[in-house]
């Protein structure tokens, strides 16, 4: 086995703000190192490439002990927006792009973006619901073919 990584295929299964970012950062980091990158969006992760939704991803303020705020407080109206906004501000300071721009950056960097066929069917979505930069809607089998010879990361 080679001691360098030539290709990564990253699966994005979560649709929360904090569920999507790590995968985007890892995919971008791969491209910056000259590593080939595929990003496969499945289930709620598809919101990140959904034209109507990818600007509006929110931090999960309920059921997220890492935030260290009481669940009842996290459930108050507007809490998710508030926390997301704060996180966005911090990220902008660090020059992290917002999600739609990040997806564009990935596509421009040569990362290949795919949606999961099973999830697209389940949520009754169509190609038009997704960004133009989407490479295609593919099956799990096709994903494994693309991923062959590289590393697979599930997020």
């Amino acid at each position: 086995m080679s001691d360098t990584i030539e290709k990564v295929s990253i699966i994005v299964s979560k649709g929360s703000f904090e569920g999507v970012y790590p995968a985007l950062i890892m995919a971008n980091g791969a491209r910056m190192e000259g590593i080939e990158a595929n990003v496969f969006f499945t289930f709620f992760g598809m919101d990140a490439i959904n034209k109507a939704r990818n600007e509006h991803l929110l931090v999960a303020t309920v059921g997220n002990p890492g935030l260290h705020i009481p669940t009842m407080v996290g459930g108050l109206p507007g809490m998710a927006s508030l926390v997301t906004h704060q996180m966005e501000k911090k990220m902008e300071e660090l020059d992290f792009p917002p999600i739609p721009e990040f997806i564009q950056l990935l596509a421009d960097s040569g990362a290949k973006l795919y949606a999961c066929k099973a999830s697209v069917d389940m949520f009754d979505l169509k190609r038009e619901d997704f960004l133009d930069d989407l490479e295609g809607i593919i099956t799990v089998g096709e994903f494994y073919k693309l991923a062959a010879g590289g590393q697979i990361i599930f997020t």
Partner: protein
Amino acid sequence: MAEELAAKEGITLTDRHWLVIRFMRQRYLDTGDAPTIRSLGKESGVDVKELYKLFPKGPAKLASKLGGIPKPHGCI
């Protein structure tokens, strides 16, 4: 020197490459760190798509190496 290093990476340096290398270097000298790929794409005058055409094995990494500055510290 830069030409030799570039040749090892399979790159023949053009004016566009030099634009990126000089921008990286200047930013490093001004701020103490190399720019992120985002600001490189926005501010260098070369967009992200072209950056990866010029430096397929990683624009920020290669341009900083060729410019004789440390590679960027950030994850972005």
